[in-house]
């Protein structure tokens, strides 16, 4: 099985320095792109590869790039943003790539920047990723030394400046327009769309924001072609995917597998199944803002379309497993506290609705719940639905709640009737 993204990553050892990276074929794709392809060719091959955004939304990457005004409408500077603000609870796949193979990301950035004719790129890095910051900074200076960055890259007319920006640490910065505001030094509130960032983005200029994992795929697509990339996958979305598992399983971790691998395979073959003494009750498949799936969904393929059909989302592909010895209300409460804390405070349903949700869950968990509280929670999942709020934060927060209310409703009522948490 091919594992292009993680081929250079050896747990326990540092990333490959630039010489070693080049020896494994690194920066060959960059040469190919800059010396033999037009920017349009790069966009085209990525489009044909069916690479879709790995940040969670699954938007086709080639299509996104094609929105940047080009030719006589081109605006400069154009910006490329690498969204490395991985703060979704349960997600750690970008960290693996950032720390494990920074040159792969840098190569992807340069090729992507070439494709959209960006002048400046920023890696917007999660505050807590200190090791990644050191490794990226070092790798970037190596890339500058080799003239892969700066002016006249590889002797061509293409130039790119690349900077690492350490986030101040807010979950909302993962929302691309809030990220732009944060990068500009403003409050990290999401922006109104339209205008969309590919036309009006950072400092009002065309901007593309891509996830770390998305960009890491780009060198491989350029080197091996779109068809090769599509064949890596078991689904309509091209390529491989880094899946992660956390919770009471034998071997928590992350693995690069064909896109569309089933939940069962990831859980049982790679994570080693449930830890001894723990039974599987459900899974949040794609990070904290996705709906629970349960036993009956174990054979669902983990790709964007299949997960949606099953009533959840692929999200980041990093799952959190719920076992029978953990209180689902407590789990949901823990997540809601996070989302309520991370609300930017801009729109009413999110700012007021999430803390209210937290307080109801706290009451239930502490034995002070009322039967009507469960209905109230249900109402919140409808009020904080997509389109009702300004951005996707609150609707995302509602996903684990609404599915918990669907699959574990009895547990909520047990709290209310027994006037304490049955797990305590």
């Amino acid at each position, binding site marked *: 099985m091919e594992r292009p993204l993680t081929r250079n990553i050896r747990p326990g050892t540092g990333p490959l320095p630039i010489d070693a990276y080049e020896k494994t074929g690194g920066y060959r794709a960059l040469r190919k792109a800059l010396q033999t392809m037009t920017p349009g060719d790069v966009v085209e091959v990525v489009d044909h590869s069916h690479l879709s955004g790995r940040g969670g939304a699954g938007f086709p990457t080639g299509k996104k790039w094609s929105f940047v005004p080009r030719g006589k409408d081109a605006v400069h500077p154009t910006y490329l943003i690498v969204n490395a603000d991985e703060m979704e609870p349960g997600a750690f796949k970008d960290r693996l790539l950032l720390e494990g193979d920074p040159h792969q990301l840098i190569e992807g950035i340069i090729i992507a920047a070439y494709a959209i004719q960006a002048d400046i790129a920023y890696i917007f890095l999660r505050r807590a990723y200190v090791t990644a910051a050191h490794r990226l900074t070092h790798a970037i200076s190596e890339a500058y030394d080799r003239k892969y960055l700066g002016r006249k890259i590889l002797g061509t007319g293409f130039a790119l400046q690349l900077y690492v920006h350490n986030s101040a640490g807010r979950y909302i910065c993962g929302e691309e327009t809030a990220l732009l505001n944060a990068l500009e030094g403003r409050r990290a509130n999401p922006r109104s769309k339209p205008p969309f960032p590919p036309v009006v983005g950072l400092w009002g200029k065309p901007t593309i924001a891509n996830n770390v994992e998305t960009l890491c795929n780009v060198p491989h697509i350029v080197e091996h072609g779109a068809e090769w990339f599509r064949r890596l996958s078991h689904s309509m979305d091209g390529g491989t995917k880094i899946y992660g598992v956390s919770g009471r399983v034998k071997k928590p971790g992350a693995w690069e597998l064909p896109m569309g691998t089933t939940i069962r395979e990831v859980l049982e073959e790679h994570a080693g199944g449930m830890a001894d003494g723990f039974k599987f009750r459900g899974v949040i498949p794609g990070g904290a803002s996705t709906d629970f799936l349960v036993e009956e969904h174990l054979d669902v393929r983990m790709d964007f379309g299949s997960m949606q059909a099953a009533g959840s989302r692929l999200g980041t592909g990093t799952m959190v497993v719920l076992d029978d010895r953990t209180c689902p209300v407590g789990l949901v409460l823990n997540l809601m506290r996070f989302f309520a804390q991370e609300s930017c405070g801009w729109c009413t349903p999110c700012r007021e609705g999430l803390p209210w949700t937290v307080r109801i869950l706290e009451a239930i968990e502490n034995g002070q719940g009322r039967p009507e509280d469960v209905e109230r929670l249900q109402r919140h999942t409808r009020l904080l639905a997509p389109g*009702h709020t300004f951005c996707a934060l609150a609707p995302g927060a509602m996903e684990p709640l609404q599915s918990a209310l669907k699959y574990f409703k009895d547990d909520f009522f047990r709290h209310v009737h027994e006037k304490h948490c049955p797990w305590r």
Partner: protein
Amino acid sequence: MATIHIDGKPYQVENGQNLLQACLTLGFNLPYFCWHPALGSVGACRQCAVKQFKDEDDTRGHIVMACMTPAVEGVRISIDDPEVVMFRSSVIEMLMANHPHDCPVCDEGGECHLQDMTVMTGHGFRDYRFKKRTHRNQYLGPFINHEMNRCIQCYRCVRYYRDYAGGRDFNVFACHDHVYFGRHRDGVLENPFSGNLVEICPTGVFTDKTFMEHYIRKWDLQTAPSVCVHCSLGCNTIPGERNGKLRRIRNRYNHRVNGYFLCDRGRYGYQFVNSEQRIRLPLRRSRGNSDLEPVSVEAVLRETAAFQTDARGMIGIGSPRASMEANFALRTMVGPGQFYAGLSEHDFGLIRTVLSVLRDGPARTPSLQETSAADVVFVLGEDVTNTAPLLSLNLRQLVHRKAARVAERIQIPDWNDAGIREVVQHEKEMLFIASPHGTALDDLALRSYHAAPDDLARLGFGVACVLDPSAPEVEDLTDEERSLADEIARSLKRAERPLVVSGAGCGNLAVIHAAANVSRALCACGHPAEIFLTVPECNSLGLGILDAAGGLESAAEAVRDGIAETVIILENDLYRRAEPALVTAFLDSTKHVVAMDHLVNETTLRADIVLPAAASAEASGTLVNCEGRAQRFYRVLIPEGMVQESWRWLLDLMTAAGRPEVHEWHILDDLNRAMAATMPALDTLSAAFPDAGYRATGGKVPRQSHRCSGRTAVRSHIDVHEPKPPEDADTPLAFSMEGDDGIPPADLIPRFWIPGWNSVQSLNKFQSRVGGPLRRDAPDRRVIESRREKSWAYFTDIPPRRPPEEHPWQFVPIHHIFGSEELSAMAPAVAERCPKPYVALHPSDAAALEMADGDLATVIVGDTVLRLPVRPEPSLPPRVAGLPMGLPGLPTISLPASGMISRGENHG
């Protein structure tokens, strides 16, 4: 026009609106918070949700925010759909989760948008049973009270204060449900438009602090339409009165003038009306006694009748802060040849020049609101941020206009405020400022240039000459001036709607001439150029129209030459007009000085007879603003004592003397008719306003609300019989709660209030479309309109270059929004914001004099010697010093002028 479908019925709406604007304009009650017609849409509060359907067959639909959805052809929505009704009610419920429900002790109660919207959505009981969050309140200065717990986080305050008004010392802090709106720490809100927060805030977070001192509910306020008297722009206001006290000022929307906002001088200057310094009874100086003493009206009338019949003559001194009627009555009383302007000859000359440029110049004068539609603006010589504050607020919106034009290309509609501000983030505006010193608008300007007034005039003449080579040439411009003139001219020439702004502020005739030349030159290039000239006071231009015989110096001459021995001074402290020595000599040489005014001042203290003149809130009359617009203000307050309108005093004096002119003068309308008949420039005036006989179906327009309480109870401890309400013979307004309760004509709107809409937001219902003209709009009443004559000749008085170095110091005026205007400076809250007198110098000039910030300098200008602390001002040109204008405690000096500065001797 586009057809949209609301709950199954088709409606025609104007293009380019969002659904919220369209629904409100159609008369639907759709609740909202974060949207404001002047601020546009951002989609934060989620209150204006409606359900949108894809087509006729779509029965499910989806919820959208009306403020963020264009009202384009074919849109189908439902306001009444049960799901969206429930959603809107839930949004209120969430907003109210942390709101303290302290309406009974909240100043906003009874005129609160949050109350109105809560009732509108039907939300009554909320499920939230947990602890509410609380905040600490801040001290924000003398104007605004802060009560953060009431906040519903609509973000309007911060969008208004920072994005619209350009303030920096206010922001939103923290996040999630802890967001906090205030300053980084307690302190005075610096922005001079902070008072609008009171009307912007949909609930009681920001309330009027001066109003708190004598608080009364909106329904108990007696209100009437009025016009601000604290600068020349003539913003429309609604003063509120109860029990003989003026309680507050609110904005009165006029889409041609002030739109939605007032400046803080206009909002808080009203307190002078309640001042202890008010003159409330006629006073007379008995022979041999130096004190003024109360005297009966009959005695005054008897005595003044004698002056009038006395052959030794009488002159009148008019006033730029008195109404047209008062000035005209005085002019009639003394005769046109004996009517003087009450300004120094120099200042009167400036007004006359402005008048002639407006009347005879080729460029049109835009309305105050139209100034915000300009795309390139050249401000020459005037610090509009301090002399015409609301104009500077409009010029600030250039940023929005420019962005809107760019945004249009990528199909972002004009109302999408958030989107538009992203489009043009950091680009500077097409604003050029040339002024003697830095102004608060400089941060927006593409170029700002500071020089002595004569040099500013030379730059202006230079710009005109670049635009039109037939304009007089300035030969000795420096390279810097020449390239700046080129750049300004190029930008103006490229503009679609160029605007030149100047005025009498820096006291230099050549500056006004240069501005006129620029506008003339633009017209010569075939441009629809516009010129906006500000003047110092609320009726400066009106006084100019009355063709006074001359300024104060001429008046003094008339007395000196024995032409007159009696002087009638109308609402004018002459000590603010000319050097004290000149005024004292003038008054001392006059046998009889009769002064009428609101407040005790140097002039009334030296008068022989003083008559208590009504302030604008106590009077009805007409003012002409700096664009030549005649506006009527109506009495809202029946003052204590013998106070009455100056024109009525003059009428009484003339009647007592048996003057035949006034036989037909009984009410305001009669005076206006006489004025129109006498002054050709004012011939449209008498028919312009609804006359005293105007009646709607229900009678007069009531000044009291239909809920005015306690009418029969407040005096019941004195007499159980209710007194008859005072009559108002002059106007179609009544001192009563009975009368026409419909929407009156725009001129007569005493308050914005409509069933279900108790707050100022009810204004939507008074407009023919949201943000547009009022439903019963008044005609455009300008008494001065440019004749647009292209043959108008250029001014040629280019001042010579100022020789460098050994030249004496040049002193220029520095205006202060708080302090430079006479009446508002008497209001305690405004007085708190007045600076102390100082002399401003460039830091290097101060260093050359071996003086630091706060050191005392000796300043000699003409005969005046002052000792003032030094204030370093880096924007001042070298060897140019700034003196604050009109501050209490500072003697009047006619500026600009030459003079000397030296280190003050710091004797104990």
